[in-house]
């Protein structure tokens, strides 16, 4: 989970936005004037604007990546070159929402049904995990009770739970949702509990000297103080959930981006697999960015 570097890149690319470019341009001009006045040479007046390398670097990186890929594809083997994949992508995204029976649907439907599973599993995990996290964070004894269980189960690959899910639910879809639930649960519990434990004593002292009611303490102090931690938990959870859903769907089948990858493998349409990889990456990136924005909205100070 490298939220911060990702965000930086995102921001670095942002000066394409005119106001940002204008702003840094202005700062730059001021600096240039200053240095020109100081030394009298005026050398730096023609220097490239500061944001340019920030925009250029990711573009150069992507270009190199595509070039490397093209070279690898030229070496033979079964990897399609970027142009072929791009052409296939144009075709696929031209009609993302077609449906010809359960095994042949557009990529849009596949992504949406994966997102739906993640949403449900993850929502259930939030409903269970956040209150549990509060209780574990607030009461030392409960924390002691939960610690060994969480420590033991957290490192288990969520996919190991899939057979249990299939056994209990006797259907693929709820089993996949249940795997998402399990993998989202731990980060949510752990981060909420940490958040509750990190509440500054000062805030609780304010509550004590004012004799605030339990309800006020919860709504005005505990909840807002824990919220940033909860959002971190949510961000970690959704990252893991998006990783896991692809694998779970490969195993369970049905409609979904993971299943689609497997299906295209069976059809030996490697360019579609590559498209799926990029699609999964982009959706994951968007989810992450959305939560980073949410987290920034609720960070104080």
């Amino acid at each position, binding site marked *: 989970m490298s939220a911060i570097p990702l965000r930086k890149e995102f921001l670095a690319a942002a000066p394409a936005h005119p106001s940002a470019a204008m702003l840094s341009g202005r700062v730059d001009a001021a600096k240039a004037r200053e240095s020109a006045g100081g030394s009298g040479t005026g050398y730096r007046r023609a220097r490239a604007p500061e944001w340019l390398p920030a925009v250029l670097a990711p573009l150069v990186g992507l270009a190199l990546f595509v070039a490397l890929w093209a070279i690898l594809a030229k070496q033979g083997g079964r990897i399609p070159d970027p142009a072929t994949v791009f052409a296939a992508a144009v075709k696929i995204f031209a009609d993302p929402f077609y449906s010809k029976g359960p095994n042949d649907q557009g990529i849009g439907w596949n992504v949406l049904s994966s997102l739906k599973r993640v949403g449900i599993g993850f929502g259930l995990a939030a409903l269970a995990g956040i209150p549990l996290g509060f209780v574990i964070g607030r009461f030392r004894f409960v924390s002691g009770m939960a610690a060994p269980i969480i420590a033991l189960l957290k490192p288990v690959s969520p996919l190991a739970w899939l057979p249990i899910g299939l056994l209990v639910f006797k259907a693929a879809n709820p089993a996949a949702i249940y795997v998402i639930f399990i993998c989202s649960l731990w980060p949510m519990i752990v981060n909420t509990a940490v958040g509750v434990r990190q509440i500054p004593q000062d805030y609780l*002292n304010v509550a004590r000297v004012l004799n605030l009611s339990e309800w*006020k303490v919860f709504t005005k*102090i505990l909840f807002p103080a824990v919220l940033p931690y909860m959002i971190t938990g949510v961000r970690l959870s959704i990252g893991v959930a998006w990783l896991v859903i692809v694998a779970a769907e490969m195993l369970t089948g049905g409609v979904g981006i993971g299943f689609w990858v497997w299906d295209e493998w069976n059809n030996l349409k490697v360019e579609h697999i590559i498209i799926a990889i990029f699609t999964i990456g982009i959706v994951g990136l968007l989810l992450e960015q959305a939560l980073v924005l949410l987290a920034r909205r609720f960070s104080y100070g």
Partner: protein
Amino acid sequence: MDPNRYLVVEGAGKTFETRTGDFVALTGIDLAIRKGEFVTLIGHSGCGKSTLLNLVSGLLTPSEGTILLANRHVEGPGPDRGVVFQNHSLLPWLTCFENVYLAVERVFDDKKAKLRDRTHQALELVGLSSAEHKYPHEISGGMKQRVGIARALAIEPKVLLLDEPFGALDALTRATLQDELMRIVEKTGATVLMVTHDVDEAVLLSDRVVMMTNGPAARIGEVLEIPLPRPRARLALAHDPRFMDLRAEVLEFLYAKQVHKVAKASLKVA
């Protein structure tokens, strides 16, 4: 009720249980504060002056002795005492107005409009009407502390407890806020108990300065009356020989009478 014994600390002491055994922070503290009096507690750091304040605020329970406010036992924290914390302790997700309103709403049983009025008044008293809707991170340290004072005063407490309220501020802001506090206390007639380690602050603001010996097992060393007339003007007092004498007395207590222990303590640290 005897107005000379509005806030009474009787034989109070505090012992903390630590891993290495009991630590006696305070012992045998006797202090009576009259209604409307401004008393400061001064002493070297670690002398337990904040501990004493926390006993009065109810955040700590005394291990021995009792504390009475207006003839009633202090048992735990309560809104009859307004506390201003050293680090302002404003809730960062509430605006200045909301921070004060949270306290007002808890204490008074009025209609919403009346509660809002009280909040506005408290913020006006500390000169922050224009910053009401700002969040704590949008205002300066001095302004935050003003909000802290407004929050403590808005609940109309019997006594105002200030724990080194200006300790974290720069000298100029501190001076402004000291003047402001004097004005507010004069206007409201509040009874104040304040912890400080600033000698000038103690002499300028107080009716009495309570000087504490060094811990562990700190006690009240000396109590100095400050009979300077009010209102007091900082500039005029700066050259006033009475002010200088009083100041010298506090300094003498801190740096001559208590210095021995300090020297030993710092030797141990080194």
